[in-house]
Structures are given as structure tokens and as C-alpha cells.
């Protein structure tokens, strides 16, 4: 993964934070390719519920994932205010459907705490760590774990 999990101490990191399912999450700003408005997606058959389908991103087919539903939260109701955050995961691009973008955070690596055992496998699996800013708590998403395991379903 190109994203450094153990950046050099004292090297500040920038994160894009957003709201999904009523909670605040963030991803490393380096993995964000663009942020765009919601447009109706073409549903994919035989796919997990959280895969909302695919959209046309300047000629490429971009899969859209409902982040809230992926995290086992109630599904996002797409509206005009909904946002798609296009993130790069390895060689792939994936669009995350979220409620709204909130902030850009600049933090020290020591501000990130490991995820405690929260009793929810989904959340534990996809959250890299917790960041505390004033009295807010923002969870950092491990984007590389979001995509379903590559399996040849049609085989």
C-alpha cells in the first residue's frame, strides 16, 4: 500500500474528514483523487448491498460504495447534498458515497490511537485508528480493506 502506516515521527499528516451514517470519518488526503456530487449509479447484479453500482468517471467505470452500509450503519439516502469521494486503492479507484465532507485535518502521528475493541467486527476491520481533535473523535478509514475480497464470482 502506498499509504504510509508508520510515517516518520513528527511528520504531519493531512486527512480529509467527512460524515457518514452520522459519524465522522477521515481518509489520508493523498489517497483522495477527487470529490464529486452524487449521480445515479448503474446497479451491479449479484453484488453486495453496499455496492451502489457504477458511474462514469470521465470514461472509466467507477464502482460506488456506500460507506455507511459498508460499516454496518444504516444505508445512506443519496440526496443532492450527498458526495462521492473518489479514493485510490492501489491501482484501483473507488467512489465512497458519504453524507458530506466536513474538514481537512492536519495532525501529528501521535494523535492517532489504535482502535480499541469496539465489539463490531466491521468497524474494527475498516478503522485504522482514532483521532481526537478537541472534543471530536474522527475515525481513520483503512481504504485498502474496504473493497470486497477479489474473488472470481463467475467462476
Amino acid at each position, binding site marked *: 500500500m502506498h499509504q504510509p502506516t508508520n510515517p516518520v515521527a513528527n511528520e504531519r499528516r493531512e486527512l480529509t474528514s467527512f460524515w457518514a451514517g452520522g459519524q465522522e470519518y477521515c481518509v489520508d488526503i493523498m489517497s483522495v483523487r477527487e470529490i464529486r456530487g452524487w449521480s*445515479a*449509479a*448503474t*446497479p*451491479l*447484479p*449479484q*453484488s453486495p448491498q453496499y*455496492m451502489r*453500482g*457504477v*458511474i*462514469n468517471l*470521465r*470514461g*472509466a*467505470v*467507477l*464502482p460506488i460504495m456506500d460507506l455507511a452500509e459498508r460499516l454496518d450503519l444504516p444505508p445512506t439516502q443519496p440526496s443532492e447534498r450527498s458526495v462521492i469521494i473518489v479514493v485510490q486503492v492501489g*491501482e*484501483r*479507484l*473507488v467512489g465512497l458515497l458519504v453524507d458530506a465532507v466536513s474538514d481537512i485535518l492536519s495532525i501529528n502521528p501521535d494523535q492517532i490511537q489504535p482502535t480499541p475493541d469496539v465489539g463490531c467486527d466491521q468497524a474494527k476491520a475498516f478503522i485504522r485508528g482514532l483521532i481526537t481533535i478537541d472534543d471530536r473523535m474522527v475515525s481513520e478509514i483503512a481504504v485498502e480493506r474496504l*473493497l*470486497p475480497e*477479489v*474473488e*472470481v*464470482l*463467475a*467462476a
Partner: protein
Amino acid sequence: MDELEEIKITFFQECDELLGDLESGLLSIDAGATDPELINAVFRAVHSIKGGAGAFGLEALVRYAHVFETLLDNVRGGKTDLRSELVKALLRAADVLADHVAAAKQGGEGDAVSTAAMVEELEAWISGGPVPTAPAEEVNIEPNEDGIVFTPIKLSIPEVDEGPKEQAWTITFQPMDELYSKANEAGLLIREIERLGKIEVELLDDALPTFDSLDPETAHFAWKVRLRTEVPEERIREVFEFVEGHCSTTIVREAPAPTATEPAAGPDIAAIIAAAQAGDAQAAANSAPSEEATAIAPEPPAASLPAAAVPALAESMSSRGAPPPAPEKGNQATIRVDPERIDKLIDLVGELVINQAMLAQRVSGHGFAASSDVGRGLDELEQLTRDIQDSVMAIRAQPVKSVFQRMPRLVREIAGQTGKQVRLVTEGEGTEVDKTVIERISEPITHMLRNAIDHGLETPEERIEAGKPAEGTVRLAALHRGGRIVIEVGDDGKGINRPRVRQLAIDRGLISADAQLTDEEVDNLIFLPGFSTAAKISDISGRGVGMDVVRKSVQGLGGRISISSKPGLGSMFTLSLPLTLAVLDGMVIDVAGQTLVVPLTAIVESLRPTPTEVKKVGAQGGVLAVRDAYVPLVDIGRVLGFQTVDTNPAEGVVLLVDSEVGGRAALVADSIHGQRQVVIKSLESNYQQVPGIAAATILGDGRVALILDVDALVAMRRRELPRADEPFIEAAE
């Protein structure tokens, strides 16, 4: 990447081309071609590989290539007879050379054991076969029917060439423009010659035009170099090897002046020398690509020549007539382009196609008639867009030759391993197909060939017993048919043993014991996963990679594979693939509010059934009466999970499709929008494979539409409704 690395990459690319030339040249010779240019081309290929390898310090490769080259040079010079066993040895040597190149590419060295064995064999050929030199008296220098004096070089040797002895040579060469444009220069060549001995250089500036008509980019000068040296003629020729085709060269040995060291030359000897010179001039004219060569060939010093010899020489030179055209390869103006740039261009043209469709849709939405100025303009744009698309696709189109070329070696190896005698016949090597397809057909072809030889062909003994020639024939052919490329791999072996295939399928629980199968269905059982008909799992085609894998990879390319077989006469695999993986002609349909594209190649016909033609079978199944047959109905929306209730076929549209797995099926859709060429977009590049979906595309309105995988869809429906008598359930997966 540093510069040297880049050059090295280019070198290896060239090596691949050269190895291809080498092999195809040897194969033509093996097939009986006698063109001397062929052996020259073969020699050049090895020589160039050696030269390049030397530049990169690839010692092992150079050492091996050198032995190979020496033998080829002997063959070229007529010292070693080109017998059929020798050609076979040369082919094996070419394989070893390819291994060396491949190893060098990985930074290693070729397998020492096989190399040593091959070197030994080559050296045996080198030392084993010089043609015994005939005594001069018996020499027959009568011109043949073309008036060309034959074999003169050999004749002169025993008399004149006893060990190294200083000789005088006249070398005349006239560089052509290309020599300079390839960054060579005459000075370097002269310096090279100087290394061989003492030289006198004379500039021939007769062709120099007056100053006002001088073109500074054109070559005007020629040089005459008189060389006194002990080295043999080949060494002198080597100097010009790298400018071959870019320079007209004649190398003529001067008649030795009668000196004290030389016995007085009788007329016989003089005639022989003259003949030798005629031969030299002849050889020079052969290698020179243009007429100037003969024109500027200097008259041999007439003083020592008996008058009788002169007409023979003149005749032999004039009888050449126009020299053969320069080898085509040198003239082929090609450019190397980074494939990524072409891919980018293809993507952009894809965008253009989408945009054009989008524009057309919007214009018609605004009520412009097709006959209006705007409508006509759009028509032209569409035509133009298609033309551009075709042209761009043509850039990436490549003949299947590059894949076919690799197969003779494979066949030789498998034949060696199985102890079978195999002759490979290839046809349609020039058939062009998109690079994306080329890259992916090699593997299925390899498998099919392995299968044909390992399972299809009999052993020589079995063949003779069956009244067939001991050598089996495997035919590999490519052709265009109906907008697809068809690859056929056929053998004249024993054909599929249907009772055994059937029994195996029953034993492995793939079909029920009482299943009624047609011959064709039995043949196609070999595509079932894990099926292997060889009683003993062989090393060649039994590595757990069966025909099911081949079928799967072919289907992944949007292709189909089938087999037909005649007991005792052989089998033929037929592989049908799209010409490109970039665009597709499709039928745009609506299903449960979704727009989908069905590949046109799969559709037999579309129809609107009447309610009486639709019959229910059981609780969920249904069939459609089409003429005299009942065709199973497949509700696209329900199979894909877009809806839970079947669309009433009588209210929608039915597409009759031919699927590879289950024969004909009737796909039920809500409506048809029409036919359209669509640009194929991969779902896998950002996501993963989706069952029932082959790929995606972008429609005129900018939205993504999914392209159906008809075979998979029919298979999915079958999985949904399992039936006991269905033999292809597994195969469909």
C-alpha cells in the same frame, strides 16, 4: 531507468524479432526453400544478436552465438552442405539461442548443460563437413545455362591460398545516403580496413556535381582502397557487414604479380584465378543492392589475364542483369511507439464515439430532423468517427504471426517428449487482430496444440498400423469470419474416443449414467473442469490444466471454443474470438428499468412472441415455441436480481441467443432501443468480475450500461433451475 538499460530493452526487443526471423528462415529452408538470401538472413540474425550481446558484455550469449554463427557462415560459404539433418540441428540451436537470450534478459546465463551439448554438436558440424577441395585440373568452369560461372571460389584455393600469404585486394565502395543517415561514415570503414593491412586509398569523386547543384544531404563520393593483407576475404567482408544494403561494395582480389615466390603461372592457373575473380565480383554483385555495384566494379588488372578469361568474366557480370532488390526489411519504414500512447489514443477515440452518440441524442432531442443540415452534419461526423476508430484500431492490429512463430518450437518439444512425429502446418499467419487479443491467445493455442499432439496424435507405430503416415500433421490456422477471428487447431490423429470420454464423465459424476448425449455433446465433455482423457496423467497436458481452463480463458475474451471430431480421422478445435477487446456491436435493451447491452454476435434473432407461443413448464420454467422447437425462456431481470417476478414475454421482447453452454435460449427483455457500437470498459480495472456481466460501456447519455455475458447468464439460470438430466451444469460454470 538509465540510458543503457533502455538501450538494452531495445536490444532484447530486437532479439525477439531476430529470433523470429531466424526460426522462420530455418523453417523455410527446412520446407525446401533454396533462396540464398534466406541463409544470409539467418546468418545476419545470429550475427546481430552476437554483436548486440557483445556490446552489453553478455559473455555466455556471445560465446554460444559465435559457434552458431561460425557454422552458419560455413553453410553460407558452401563449406558445409545444408542437409536436412543439419537444418534440424540448426533449429535446435536456434531454440538454445532463444533460451540464452531469455536467460540474459533475466540477467542470467543459459543452461550450461544444454549449451555444451549443442556447442559440441555444432562444432562437429563445423569440423565434420568441409567439402573436399577438388584439384584444379578437374575443375569444371563451364558456365551453367544462365552463363553464370559456378563454384569458382573453391577452385582457386589449393593453388593460390596455401596458408596466410600477403595478397592484394581492390575494394571499391560507394556509400548511399542511408549509410550516413544511419550514423555511419566512410572514414570509419576505411579505418577498419586499415587495421587489416597496408592500404592505399583513392577518392572517386566523378559523381560529385557542380557546386550549385550540390545536395549536401546526398552521398556523392566513392572510394577505392587497395589493401595488401594476409587476412582471408571474409575478414574484409566483415568490415562491411553492418553497412550491408547501405553501400555498394566490390571486393576483388588482384592477380598476384608473377614473383619469385610464385611458380610461373600457367594459363590454367590464370584461368582459375580469373574465374575466382569472376566469382568474387559475382558475390559482390549479389550482396550489393543496386546496379552501381556492377557499374563501379573495377576491371581486374588485365595484364595477367589471358584474353580468353575476360569475356567469361564480362559475361558472368552482365548476365546478372538487375541485381535482386535490397532485402525488404531494410526498406520497411516502421516506427516504434510506446504502446501506452496508442492505448491512450484508443481511449480518447472511445470518448469521441461516446461524445458523438451523446451529441446525436441531444440534437434529436431538440427536434432536428435527420434530413436537416444539423442531422446530415451529424451523420458525417458519425461516419468520420467510425473511420477514425477503425484507423486507430488498425494501428494496434497485429498479424497473428508473432504468436504462431512460437509454436514450431513448442511442437518440436512436445514431439520430443511424447516420441511422436509431428509436422506443424500453419495457415493465415498474416491474419490481423488487435494487440489486446494477440497477447491473450497464445496460451489457449498452446494448450490446444499440446492437447492435439499429446492426446490427438497416435504414436508412429499406431499410425503405421492404422495405415497412416508415421508423421502426424497438426494444422494451426487463423482466418477472419463474420467479424471475428477464428483459430483452428486440427490434427489427423485418432479422434475423440467417445465411449471412453462418456465413461469417464460418468465415473467422475459429471453426467448421469443414463444421460442421452449427442456425439457433439460427448465431445464437448472434455471441457468439463478437471477432465483428463489420458489414462496416465502425462507431463505435457496433464498438469491439472485441462481444457476447462482453456475454455474459461477464451470465454474471458468474449470468445467461444468448440471441438469436432471424427473417429480415426482426427479432431479440430475451433476458437472464435472478437477482433478487438475495445469495441463491440451491441443491441441496447431495457430490463427492469436498467439499460443493458447484448453483444450482437450472440443474438440469432429478436421477436415479439404472441401469448400462445409462451408455454409454462412447471412452477417457474417456461419455454417459447419458435417454429418447431421449444426454447427455454430466460428472464434477464430476474436472473440478474433486478426484479423478483418474470416479465411476461408476450408483453416484452425476446432475444433468441445461441449460448455455448446450453444451446439456444430465449432472453426476455422489456424493450429494445436499437443497435449500437459501444466501447468496452472493464469492470475489473476498478472493481471485479460480476456474474452474468461481461463488461460495461458508457452510453450516449453518459451513464454506464452493463454488457451482458450471455453464456454466463444462461448458465446462471440453469443453476437456478437444476435439472437431473442436464449434463452441462458444471461445464457452464
